[in-house]
């Protein structure tokens, strides 16, 4: 399974953190520091895989953001790179030419998208279109009821 996903800028500022196992707050901060230090120190054309404790760290840089995914030792590193890429594609489709600012100012949406793609440290949906459609529907649900109505249409179903 995947253990955590971190997004941080070239200056080491955290933009998103998703933890797939329960970890105390202090420990999380420590891990974030270690990850940012380790990844930012890597040479430009290095291998995208690192070893850290008993995990494999897969990282990839997209423009000004580093995506850092920790997987267990028996997982497929090359597929992890594809997972990262898929998430970036989903963000890109949603925001339209996504950039770091989009993720800063709409971080909660970045989480919502992530939560439709991954779940409990595993891949939840392998189709890009389905994820996009679900996010759209949830957004519409939220929009539609922002006006103050308090109950849901019982038959609102869309896939």
């Amino acid at each position: 399974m995947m253990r955590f996903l971190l997004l941080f800028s070239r200056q080491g500022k955290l933009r998103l953190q998703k933890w797939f196992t329960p970890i105390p707050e202090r420990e999380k901060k420590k891990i974030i520091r270690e990850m940012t230090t380790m990844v930012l120190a890597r040479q430009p054309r290095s291998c995208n895989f690192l070893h850290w404790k008993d995990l494999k760290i897969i990282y990839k840089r997209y423009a000004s953001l580093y995506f850092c995914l920790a997987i267990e030792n028996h997982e497929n590193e090359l597929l992890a790179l594809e997972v990262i890429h898929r998430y970036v594609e989903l963000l890109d489709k949603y925001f339209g030419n996504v950039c770091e600012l989009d993720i800063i100012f709409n971080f909660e949406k970045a989480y919502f998208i992530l939560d439709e793609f991954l779940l409990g440290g595993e891949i939840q949906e392998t189709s890009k279109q389905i994820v996009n459609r679900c996010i759209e529907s949830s957004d519409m649900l939220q929009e539609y009821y922002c006006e103050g109505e308090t109950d849901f249409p019982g038959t609102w179903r869309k896939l």
Partner: protein
Amino acid sequence: MLQRFVNTSNAMSPSVPLQEMIRAIRSARTQCEERGVIQRECAAIRAQFRQADNGGRSHNLAKLLYVHMLGYPAHFGQMECVRMIASPRYSEKRVGYLGAMMLLDEKQDASLLITNSIKNDLSHSNQYVQSLALCTLACMGSAEMCRDLAPEIDRLLRASNSYIKKKAALCAVHIVRKVHDLGELFAPAARSLLAEKNHGVLHGAVVLITELCERNPETLERFRKTVPDLVQIMKGLVISGYSPEHDVAGISDPFLQVRILRLLRILGRNNEAASDAMNDLLAQVATNTDSTKTVGNAVLYETVLTVLDIKSESGLRVLAVNILGRFLLNNDRNIRYIAMTSLQRIVGTDHNAVQRHRGTIVDCLKDQDASVKRRALELSLALVSATNIRSMMKELLLFLSSCPLELRAQAASGIFNAAERYAPSQRWHIDTILHVLTTAGGDVRDETVPNLIQLITNTSELHCYTVHKLYRALLSDISQQSLVQVACWCIGEYGDLLLRGECQETEPVQVTEDDVLDALETVLQSHMSAPATRGFALTATMKLSTRITDNVDRIRSIVSIYGSCIDVELQQRAVEYNALFKKYDHMRAAVLERMPVIEKNSPGHTNGESTREAVKEVQPAKVKQAETLLPQQPASQVCDLLDLLGGSEEPLQPNPAVGSTLPVLPVSTSSTAGGDLLDLLGGLEPTPLTPAPTVTVYEKGGVTLTLSSEKQSDSGLTVTLTACNSTDSDISSFTLQAAVPKSVQLHMKAPSGDSLPARGAAKVTQMVALSNPNKVNLKMRIRISYTSQGSAFQDTVQVDSFPEH
């Protein structure tokens, strides 16, 4: 200003209050200013939380979550999350659940409070609300929550739409990870999910089944029946035409393919029938998958791992290793890296197959990337053998001279091990070690110095060559401590050979006594020399007093100068040596004569308590070092251990050494004055050795097999097996074979013999060197075969625990 963030085609409208706050924080110019902004905002948020529902609750919580991500405390938002989750509004639920996942974890009390909400939302009429509950449960569900909600999840697994089913499957995975027993509950539903067409559900089902099989062997047995179904699904993915919904660079749903391959691996492991059933499919995937993009290689990689782990037929295995070979030549560094990690895993079992790619692997030693270099080093060391030792060593030494610092210690010790095992000649061995010491002397382990000294003493025909070489090395560089120590020791021991000038193996060089003493004095006086090194140099100088003729006075004066040295260790030595010159001059020759050949450490020796201590004492070394002077490595020559293992009382005799007839006298480095020398002279009787603990592992038909083990290093163990025959007839063709768990490396040394005479007249011993780098539970299966009275016997015994030395 807000235009930038307003609706793109499908994004929902942004939260204005949230974005205003984010901008305010970002425009702060200093950390202090930022803190100020955040404090103000948090105060406002707290106030808002206390107020009644004002429609802006979700914005407030979102603000708090942003602040939390910047690293500021946000625990006061926990209860707000709980309230929001219970809200009937979807927008509030959404942010509430997000907040719960970010701020709460199973250890906090507040998390218990949301259990009820989750339970209710799991059966909500709207699937997006159900989805929120499922997501949160799978993210942070505690064991209790899991137990509570498991039946509900099972229900959702069976009767809901695909959207919910796929999430329920992964929830079930989380539940099983938290509460192992609940696996049984989900097995039937998991089985039926394999018939679904929806890829999301299929993927979830495969993950769930994998989890169940990994945890419970019985469940694994039952799920073996699904292999044909899985093969069918895989075939569908591989052969099917273009499917826009799941296509990634020409591969149809690579994520699902990889998960199915992994499940097949688990089901096919150790099972012929299952492995057969998947053989064709694996061959098809291996040959048909497009390997031009990473995604194709990801699938190929998983296929290779599966082929190598199940009971595949040899043709398929060869195909897999060849794919790895192709990966090694790939331009993409990532691919080369994983090729090497995979080859590393099979270098023990498919050694010859991996050897074929040795050239490429050695080339990777020159790669720019540190991770690739590391893998290449490990793999290269694993591929060293008696046939390729010379060429491999050239490459490894080249690597050592330019490798990154963090790899040097590993490279140096790997080279030493390889040299020890496969050295084609003594001279080559010594040359290699000297080369390493010159290049990376600072990174070698402490035992290297005594090991090398011992190796040199044993190679008496090369003493002249060695001392010349070391002298030259000393002249050029005195900064590498280990090298300098060995050089000083040799010059002290074999200085006479150095002065003789002639040497068969190297060009002769004229060395005068003054030259030699100059060199040693340089070491003594240099600020680069460590205290231990100076000790070596001083003792070497002293030893030369019996090997040179003209400059004894010079030595006398050096020694007396150091009699008032600030360094206590040096001072003590100098005082003792002074005493040797004055009061005990008649003993000087005997005390300082040539060292006998030191026997390599064999089980049965305890460091610091054996007679070897007497031999070691004359070595110039710190007291602590004296105890570890005996090399820790297992003997490469077969030692006659019959006497030692039985815990016999026979005193050890030092082996006859060059020119020595008297046993060496112990000189304790902890004695305070020259007077004590006299007392120690009386204690010439060697003490009996304390033998290593032995365990009887086999006793049948008159044949007894005992085992003793000694730890050589963190992952190395030397095991000695001793066999004895108590019957009335002789036993012949006695052989032992051993097998160990997969990741453990085994090296059986030659046995002492193959016949066991009757009535325990003689024993057979065999040493086995084990290396357990992964620290797995060490077990060994031993097969005993022999012939007695014309019939052949064979038996097997398993050893589960090893007596620790």
